[in-house]
């Protein structure tokens, strides 16, 4: 087989199912194993890595005894001698030849298009080059406003570029959308910050050596540091021609997927069937199944063409289109719904009460229903009132229960509901991973993942949620996933995240979690939204059962002074504090303070916040160490104070307590703290993951170091690593157990110097953006932050 892409390899997978007696050789001119080309835009957008999109790993080729020759381009075919010639001069004989040569990017005739800085976006290497080149602040121009062009544009934008899409036609995605739908899409792209220029023909690439701009027909031009051409594809038919096959736009095949030569077959984007060349994955998979039957001597099934559904894969921009898109005067009816504020446009075209076309922009949740109606040509006369809004009841199993067994669930891989159910029963599947592996469903564009999951849940005897749990119902992603998304999509406010990836509302579980995540990811340089914070973090004090608050000033290392103690006593008197309590953390708690008094209490104390109310750095408990103790071997007091100074005011996934002791007698209980420093003669033990609360756990040894500075550094590395990798509300003792101390060591103290420096740098930046929360008394977030509103008085006065 010539070509190692999705269509060809999927066909080989089908051929293998027929248990043929073939010795298979696959030539691929790229140097990669078969990967999911559809997801290249996700790689460009930073949502997936190159490894994530591999479909068949090397072991698959080995297991199936396939001779894989990568990086080798076949340049000639001799249909009489039955040999192919490679660009390295190698000659290989064949009995049957399968051409799966795919397509090439269409390069419009633009003057000076070969300049440095002009790219195409077709394969993994193109994507890598783009990723290398795309930098924040660069001006990128994408020529082509089709599916690929728009996905490339969004990817480049996520990489920080300032992106303009230039499209020849007056409508974006004009092959899939009508002008109204295209208008909605253009508005969406503009809202995302991508400029869209329509009806413009690019005539020239400007620049001296390197690209500096593009010029349009009629004389206008715009600046550009980087140009991506995504103006379409054309079938790659060179080898077909050399083999003497019948060629029109593509290699012509009949319904059995035979070419004009009985020993040469073709599949994928390079073929033309019943006058149509397909450029999407679903038809290519259908073709592969038919071809596999024909080539293995089981000729019979025929390919009748595929009803195409197209989905744009840009997170937050939902576009779906299938079938007829233009309004026709042939007795067709058009049913339409538009809501400009919500950005939703739905259009169905019906002929004789049967669906012939659908366009959805802004809400594609019902696309599988429409696809089903389109394929089945179901009579919809009884459902006319619900066509645009199919029943949205709360029953999660209803969606799949309404589908009949032959309905296609995964359009990319051509997997029906019946096939999935059969696989679940026969193989005892219970996770999505197993389902993907056995049926290939949802391994294409991934848009049917939700449906597959519902089906699995409904059918599997022992359904198991994948280990990655979602944070909450409002934002159905795992926290690992969310951190990646927020980072790559550059989201900086909780509401933004909820609007784009959640239900737009949020709850008391996800809002504080997202607040933490944003603060951590952007090192404090995020858009803080206090409405998403628990009351403690709005007023910087700990709410008590009667609605009053407790106030704990910072007393670093538990060391205070007569002067501080006097001020604390005066404050307790002045504000009639109900109880003054020495805490277990070597600090003093003033209990029963009214919310309105908080700013005055802080001012009178003249001490910083002890963060006793938040998921953040609490304190460092110390013993007196070498300064006074007869047994002390390290200066635990000043080391503890320094540790507290370095880390105070930071937020953490859960509260974080530390301890520093001057000898192994462990008087300040450092071995049951989240981070502990245990002094010994000539060295420090740095321990992590201890607990003496709901759980009791002895901390694990992270490392033993000689100097105090090294100990402080190790503690800082661990802290930042915990901040970046733990789930919200996961204490260090759970985190260290889940992660394993070996892994923690490997990625903190034993990490390569560059990785350690990166952790330190992010900690430094977070620290720079942090400050004593109690200073807010002078810079109130809102006029009523601490106020009880009494009409007719202060506020309305």
């Amino acid at each position, binding site marked *: 087989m010539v070509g190692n892409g999705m269509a060809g390899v999927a066909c080989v997978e089908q051929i293998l199912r027929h248990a043929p007696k073939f010795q298979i050789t696959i030539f691929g001119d790229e140097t990669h194993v078969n990967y999911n080309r559809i997801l290249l835009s996700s790689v460009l957008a930073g949502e997936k890595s190159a490894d994530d999109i591999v479909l068949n790993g090397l072991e698959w080729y080995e297991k199936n005894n396939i001779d894989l020759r990568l990086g080798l381009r076949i340049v000639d075919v001799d249909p009489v001698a039955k040999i192919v010639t490679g660009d390295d001069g190698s000659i290989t004989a064949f009995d049957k030849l399968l051409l799966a040569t795919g397509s090439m990017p269409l390069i419009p005739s633009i003057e000076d298009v070969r300049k440095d800085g002009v790219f195409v976006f077709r394969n993994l290497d193109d994507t890598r080059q783009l990723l290398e080149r795309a930098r924040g602040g660069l001006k990128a121009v994408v020529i082509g406003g089709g599916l690929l062009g728009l996905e490339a544009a969004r990817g480049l934008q996520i990489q920080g570029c300032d992106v303009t899409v230039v499209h020849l036609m007056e409508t974006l995605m004009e092959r899939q959308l009508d002008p109204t739908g295209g208008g909605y899409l253009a508005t969406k792209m503009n809202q995302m910050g991508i400029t869209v220029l329509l009806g413009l023909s690019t005539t020239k690439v400007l620049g001296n050596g390197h690209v500096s701009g593009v010029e349009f027909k009629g004389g206008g031009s715009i600046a550009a540091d980087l140009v991506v051409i995504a103006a379409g594809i054309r079938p790659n038919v060179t080898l077909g021609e050399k083999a003497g096959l019948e060629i029109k736009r593509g290699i012509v095949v009949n319904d059995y997927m035979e070419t004009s030569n009985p020993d040469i077959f073709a599949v994928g984007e390079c073929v033309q069937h019943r006058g149509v060349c397909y450029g999407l994955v679903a038809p290519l998979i259908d073709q592969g199944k038919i071809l596999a039957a024909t080539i293995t001597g089981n000729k019979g099934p025929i390919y009748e063409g595929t009803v195409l559904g197209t989905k744009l894969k840009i997170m937050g921009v939902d576009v779906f289109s299938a079938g007829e898109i233009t309004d026709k005067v042939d007795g067709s009816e058009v049913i339409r719904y538009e809501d400009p504020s919500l950005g939703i446009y739905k259009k169905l075209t019906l002929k004789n009460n049967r669906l012939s076309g659908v366009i959805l922009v802004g809400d594609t949740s019902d696309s599988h229903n429409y696809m089903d109606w389109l394929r089945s040509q179901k009579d919809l006369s009884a459902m006319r009132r619900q066509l645009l809004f199919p029943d949205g009841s709360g029953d999660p199993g209803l969606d799949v229960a309404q589908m009949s067994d032959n309905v296609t669930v995964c359009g990319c891989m051509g997997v029906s509901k019946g096939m999935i159910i059969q696989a679940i029963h026969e193989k005892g599947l219970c996770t999505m991973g197993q389902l993907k592996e056995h049926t290939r469903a949802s391994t294409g564009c991934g848009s049917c993942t939700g449906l597959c999951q519902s089906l699995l849940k409904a059918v599997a005897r022992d359904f198991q949620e994948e280990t990655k749990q979602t944070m*909450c119902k409002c934002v159905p992603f795992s926290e690992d996933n969310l951190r990646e998304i927020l980072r790559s999509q550059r989201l900086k406010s909780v509401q933004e995240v909820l609007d784009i990836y959640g239900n737009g*509302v*949020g*709850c*008391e*579980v996800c*809002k*504080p979690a997202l607040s933490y995540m944003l603060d951590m990811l952007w090192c404090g340089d995020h858009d803080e*939204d*206090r*409405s*998403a*914070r*628990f*009351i*403690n973090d*709005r007023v910087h004090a*700990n*709410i008590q*059962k*009667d*609605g009053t608050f407790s106030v704990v000033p910072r007393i670093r290392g538990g060391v205070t002074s007569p002067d501080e103690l006097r001020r604390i006593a005066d404050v307790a008197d002045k504000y009639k504090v109900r109880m003054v309590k020495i805490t277990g953390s070597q600090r003093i708690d003033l209990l029963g303070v009214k919310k309105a008094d908080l700013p005055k209490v802080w001012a009178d104390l003249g001490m910083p916040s002890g963060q006793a*109310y938040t998921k953040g750095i609490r304190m460092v408990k110390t013993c007196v160490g070498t300064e006074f103790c007869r047994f002390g071997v390290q200066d635990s007091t000043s080391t503890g104070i320094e540790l507290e100074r370095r880390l105070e005011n930071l937020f953490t996934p*859960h509260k974080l307590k530390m301890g520093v002791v001057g000898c192994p007698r462990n008087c300040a209980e450092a071995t049951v703290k989240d981070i502990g420093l245990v002094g010994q003669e000539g060295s420090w033990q740095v321990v992590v993951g201890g607990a003496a609360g709901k759980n009791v756990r002895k901390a694990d040894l992270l490392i033993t170091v000689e100097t105090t500075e090294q100990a402080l550094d190790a503690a800082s590395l661990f802290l930042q690593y915990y901040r970046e990798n733990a789930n919200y*509300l996961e204490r260090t003792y759970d985190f260290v157990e889940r992660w394993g101390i070996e892994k923690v060591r490997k990625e903190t103290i034993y990490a390569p110097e560059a990785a350690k420096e990166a952790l330190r740098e992010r900690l430094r930046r977070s620290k720079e953006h942090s400050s004593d929360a109690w200073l807010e008394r002078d810079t109130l*977030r*809102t*006029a*009523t932050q601490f*106020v*009880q*509103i*009494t*009409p*007719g008085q202060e*506020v*309305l006065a």
Partner: protein
Amino acid sequence: MSSRTEWIQVAYCDDIPLREGREVVIGNRSIAVFNLGGKFLAVDNRCPHRGGPLADGIATGESVVCPLHGWKIDLQNGSVQRPAEMPACIKTFATRVEAGTLLLEISKLSSCPPAKVPATWSEGDSPEESKERPHEDLRFS
């Protein structure tokens, strides 16, 4: 009970930040007022569970979650949404905006009846034992 009502100016709309609540005290009555973006909702500032200050809760859609033990109260009708099937209910107040000022409709008859603790929920029972609460870690220590 013949209840004469009147509209009282309580605050500038800007005084109540978006998606947050504020306590408004009128006479001996404490009311929690929420700004839900283009809409203000007001309820008794007293959770039917243990009297927690609802104005300090996190708003989730048109509900609020009490900061003390996580009961969830519907701000539209004052009913308890979590724990489920809890018959308790708190008083709601109509709101109106006039020229940037927020008005509440208050009954002239003074003090409102104390929130009812349902018979099924005797003192000492704790909602934390109910499976309804999603996150026991919301309790701050």
